[in-house]
Structures are given as structure tokens and as C-alpha cells.
């Protein structure tokens, strides 16, 4: 006996029970399908949980424990000692300088590529070269720069023998923080090209044409139209470059075998050597510090990105 107040559904004059009601059957099968679909998400979810969420949490949390397992803020306050602060300062300086140089040079390249045919030879080569060189970090880059401007590097030797210029007259700077700038710029510029080129090519030709018909010069176009439109994208890319340099480890590790002048090297020291200021869990605190910086930078980046996409509609 049906509990529904409405009349039971009929099919060909025969009353249907809930078991045979096509509406119920449909709802049930789509429910089952839904549950199956959700199940399909679990492998990836589990993977990300174990290898991304968990390590991140662990990394941050270890900073709040001391060696004997007790909760402490010592590691976090240790971040504010002069040495560590200086390390963060060096990291900021290195990231900032390489980001600025990288973004300016990269923007120039993108400008030079305006008007080239999408899919044409020049474009494809530059885009491929950019993807490769953006990944060309770490050990191989260190080799390249030692070979170029190391003590016996090709350029060092040429400058010394042909031009009489000794770039290391005041000491070998390649293996210290200033020496990292050149290798960093080498992978920053390609990254800029990759991230900024879409914005530049999204400049509509109608804007330049409208500017011309309204009496504007080329300079006026760039100053009043293209410049302001590109500014958010440029700044966003600059921030991305900063984040990229800040989180780089391999290049510095390869060039500076001992020492912890920048934050990633400080983390290495904390993980590898037995004592760093007597606190092993320092690495966790440093990781926390890095994450905070990265979150701020990436948040600013996403704000600028949404500005950019609004105008690219």
C-alpha cells in the first residue's frame, strides 16, 4: 500500500510499486553514478594528501617543536635573530634584483616579438628556448657560469688577456650572493618571456589604430594605452619572478657548497649539518617563514592576474 497521498503512478493501466517506478529507478541509478564519480576522485585526493598536504603541514609544524618533542616558540623567534634576518634580507635582495632585471629584459624580448606570426619559425624557437632555459637551473647552470665567468672561465680569460680587465681583481664574487645574480637572471628572463608574452600579444590592434585615428603618436599609445593596460600583467610577472628566485635552491647549492647566505641554503644547513645554532627544527621554522613570504607574494600575483584577465576579455 503506497504511503503517498497522490495516486500511485500507472503504466499501461497497471499500478506501479516503488520498485518498478521508473522515476525512482532513474534517481537511484544516477545516485549510484554520482557516488561512483566521487569515488573516482579519491586516488588523486589521497595522493595529494599524502605527498603535498602532509609534508607541508609537517614542514610547518616541526618548527614549533624542539628536539625533545616539546612545543616551543624558540625556533620561530629564532627567525628574528640578526643572522637569520640577514639571510632573509639577502634572499629578498637577490630575488628582487634578479626579478627586476629579468622582467625588464624579458619584456624587451616580448616587445621585439610583437607582430611575429604565431606558430611561425621565430616564435616557436624563442618559445621553446624560453621553456628550456626557464628549467635550466641548478647544477647545469652553475657549470655554465663557472665555464663562462669562473676563475678560468671563457669570458674571464678573454677579458683578462684581450682587454686587460680582471673581473675578479677585488676577490672572487662568483661563489657568493652577488655571483648568483647572473645565473638567476639567466633563468628569470625566459620565465618572464613565458609569463608576459600572452599579455603582450593580447593587446588588440584596434587600440593602436584607434589611438592613431584620435591623433596620438606612438609614444602616446605606449604611455596612455598599452603601458597602463600591461602594467598589472608586468607587475604580476615581476612578482612571479621574485617568487621563483626566492624559492630557488639548486643553483645556489651548486655554486656555494658551504654556507647559508640565503634562506634555502639555510634550510640545507639545518637539514644536513648536526647543529645549526643548536636547533634542528630550525628547518621547519625557516620553511614556515618561506611559506609566509610565498603566500603573500602569490596572493598579490593572483590579484593582479584577475585585473589583467578582466581587460583581456
Amino acid at each position: 500500500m503506497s504511503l503517498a497521498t497522490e495516486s500511485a503512478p500507472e503504466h499501461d493501466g497497471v499500478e506501479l510499486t516503488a520498485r518498478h517506478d521508473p522515476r525512482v529507478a532513474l534517481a537511484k541509478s544516477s545516485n549510484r553514478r554520482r557516488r561512483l564519480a566521487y569515488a573516482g576522485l579519491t586516488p588523486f585526493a589521497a595522493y595529494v594528501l599524502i605527498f603535498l598536504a602532509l609534508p607541508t603541514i609537517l614542514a610547518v609544524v616541526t618548527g614549533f617543536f624542539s628536539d625533545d618533542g616539546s612545543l616551543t616558540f624558540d625556533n620561530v623567534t629564532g627567525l628574528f635573530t640578526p643572522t637569520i634576518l640577514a639571510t632573509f634580507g639577502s634572499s629578498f635582495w637577490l630575488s628582487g634584483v634578479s626579478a627586476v632585471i629579468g622582467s625588464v629584459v624579458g619584456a624587451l624580448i616580448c616587445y621585439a616579438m610583437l607582430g611575429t606570426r604565431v606558430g611561425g619559425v621565430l616564435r616557436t624557437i624563442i618559445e621553446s628556448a624560453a621553456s628550456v632555459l626557464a628549467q635550466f637551473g641548478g647544477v647545469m647552470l652553475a657549470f655554465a657560469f663557472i665555464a663562462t665567468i669562473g676563475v678560468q672561465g671563457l669570458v674571464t680569460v678573454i677579458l683578462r688577456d684581450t682587454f686587460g680587465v680582471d673581473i675578479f681583481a677585488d676577490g672572487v664574487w662568483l661563489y657568493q650572493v652577488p655571483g648568483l645574480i647572473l645565473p638567476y637572471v639567466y633563468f628569470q628572463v625566459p620565465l618572464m618571456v613565458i609569463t608576459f608574452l600572452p599579455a603582450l600579444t593580447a593587446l588588440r590592434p584596434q587600440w593602436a589604430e584607434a589611438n592613431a585615428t584620435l591623433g596620438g603618436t606612438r609614444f602616446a599609445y605606449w604611455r596612455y594605452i598599452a603601458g597602463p593596460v600591461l602594467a598589472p600583467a608586468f607587475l604580476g610577472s615581476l612578482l612571479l619572478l621574485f617568487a621563483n628566485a626566492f624559492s630557488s635552491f639548486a643553483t645556489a647549492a651548486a655554486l656555494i657548497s658551504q654556507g647559508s647566505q640565503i634562506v634555502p641554503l639555510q634550510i640545507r644547513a639545518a637539514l644536513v649539518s648536526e647543529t645549526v645554532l643548536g636547533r634542528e627544527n630550525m628547518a621547519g621554522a625557516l620553511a614556515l617563514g618561506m611559506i609566509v613570504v610565498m603566500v603573500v607574494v602569490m596572493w598579490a600575483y593572483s590579484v593582479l592576474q584577475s585585473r589583467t584577465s578582466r581587460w583581456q576579455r
Partner: protein
Amino acid sequence: MTAALTESSTTTAPTTGATVQLNSVVKTFAGQTALNSIDLEVAPGELVALLGPSGCGKTTALRSISGLESIDSGRILIDGENVAETPTNKRDIGMVFQAYSLFPHMTVLENVEFGLKMRKVAPARRRERALETLDMVGLTKYRERFAHQLSGGQQQRVALARALVTRPRVLLLDEPLSALDAKVRVQLREEIRRIQTELGITTVFVTHDQEEALAVADRVAVMRDGRIEQIGTPEQLYATPTNAFVADFVGLSNRMPAELIDGQVHLHGCTLTLLGGPMPDGPVLALVRPEDIALATAGIAGTVISSSFLGSLRRTRVRLNDGAVVAVQHEVERRPLPGDVVTVQLKGAPVSALPSEQKK
């Protein structure tokens, strides 16, 4: 050169529009001839529409006048002055593009002010003039909005205001309505025409929509393959097309096999005047307008294929006894159904003709 902008003259007084002339203008793109020695003259304050299928050169011609395309040979004269070598930003023209031309990071008002800013007009003055022009297109209350917050029709009105704020001597419109909805298109074209007439600006308007061209222009130039096939008033083009391409392109026409004898078209027992240049006698395809055929009580017999209600009139397709299918335009009160047997009659208007072998 231009009417003084810095004077506070009444802005809606017509400016003395400039003349625009193209003399033997030729333009080729990578081996293809886009403009094949075009000659065109636009009188002051006139609105000439360039009409034609895509690839006919109408946009190239417009862009040559603006300077956004360079020409290979010929002269482009604005007010008698050859501007072919003058860069675009010195030609004192206004241009409205099909879409996407508003500067996205500027408000509507800033967009409209831009031309004045380029002419170094003082901020207070240019704001005032920009608001006046914005008022002409009825968008004053949108002045602080941004392009992406406006509908397509509103954006084009802003684009129009922006082009007009400097009271240029020539206004160029490159398919300004093609990206808009049908209803907005009709409204906006009337507005453009109204403003253009009020200001007396010489205007060249490119479109592929023949209805639009006929509705809006003082004269229409029908173009094909880089040449002007015919230029004349809308009535002239419609009623007396000089060749079959124009007859076919402007308005609808039926093609009916006929015989040309002694320069007159013989069709279904009627003798009709031939429009356009002389043709050799023989079998031809006569181009007959739907409104020149009537549903009558006596005439050529046929069967109705379909009938479409178009609001103020009906268009019925009839298969005649000789196999030809014609569209007949008639009053809405008659409602032929598919399969009905009807008789149609030619009203006797002059017709154009195509040689019979040639398929256009």
C-alpha cells in the same frame, strides 16, 4: 584646416564637411589586388556607404582613407589635400571600428576625452566637450563605467562619441554594427544617421548588409573585386542596377529564363525594358524583383512551395509550370499553403539580365 576646437561655438552647428576623393587608388596585398584603381568622390556632409561581399575591397578602401593601410599608387584627397603620405594621426579623421576598440582601462568619459587630450586641450575644457558629445549619443549617465560593463550597442555608441569629439572633417565607420544584435543594429544605424546629419560630417560607411546601406546612406557604392560596380542613391541602385551583380546584390531578385530580342526582354508573354548596358540578343536570365510579380487571377500557373510571414508582407515561393521557382511578394491577407495552385503575373517593371550560360 579643422574648425577651431578651443572656441566655445555651439557644438551641434554643422561643420563645413570636407570633400573626400580617391583617385585611381591601387593597393595590392601579396600579389592579390585589393583595390583596382578606385575612383570615388564624397561631397561635403554626404554619407556614402561602401557595400559589397567580403573581400571586395571596401574595408581596404576605408582604411586607405584613414591611413591605416598604405596605398601603392593613386591619390587620396581630403579637402583637396593629398594625404596619402600623411600619417594617420595627422589626418584629422574620426574612425569607428567593428569591435574591441574602446580602451579597457579608461572610463567611458576618459575614452571620449582621448582625442582632445591628444590635441592638448585643457582638462576642464575637454571634459566639458566630451560630456556634450557623450550626451549626443545618450550615454551621459554611463560616463564613469568601463567598457566591459557596457553592452555591445553601448560600446559602439561610446566609440562613436569618441570619434566625433574632435569634430573631425571625415568620419569613417568600419562595419560598426556587424557585431551587434539585429534590433540594436536598426536602432543604432538610425542614431548614427541622425547625428551625422546634424553635424554635417562627411562620412564613409562600410557594410556588407545591403539593407543597412540602403537605409542609411545618401549614396551607395557597390564594390566587387576591388572595383566600384555602381555608385548611386539607394533608389537608383535598387530600381536601375547597371549590371547583374548589383541587381543581384541589392535586394532580392528572381532569375527567370527569358529571350532578349532587339534589346527587349521577352518573358512569359510580356515585353520588358532591359536595364543596364546593351547585351547581345539571345537567351538570358531575367532578374525580376519579388514585388514586381503579383498573385493574380490570370497569368502563369504554378504551385506554392512555401510561404513566409515577414510582418508587413508575405513572400511566397512558387514553382511555375516551366519549372522555374520564383519568390512573390504580396500582402499578408492572402495566405497560400504549400501545394496550392496559384497564378502569378509580371507587373511589367524593367529588369536586368544575365547571359544565360553564365552562372554568377
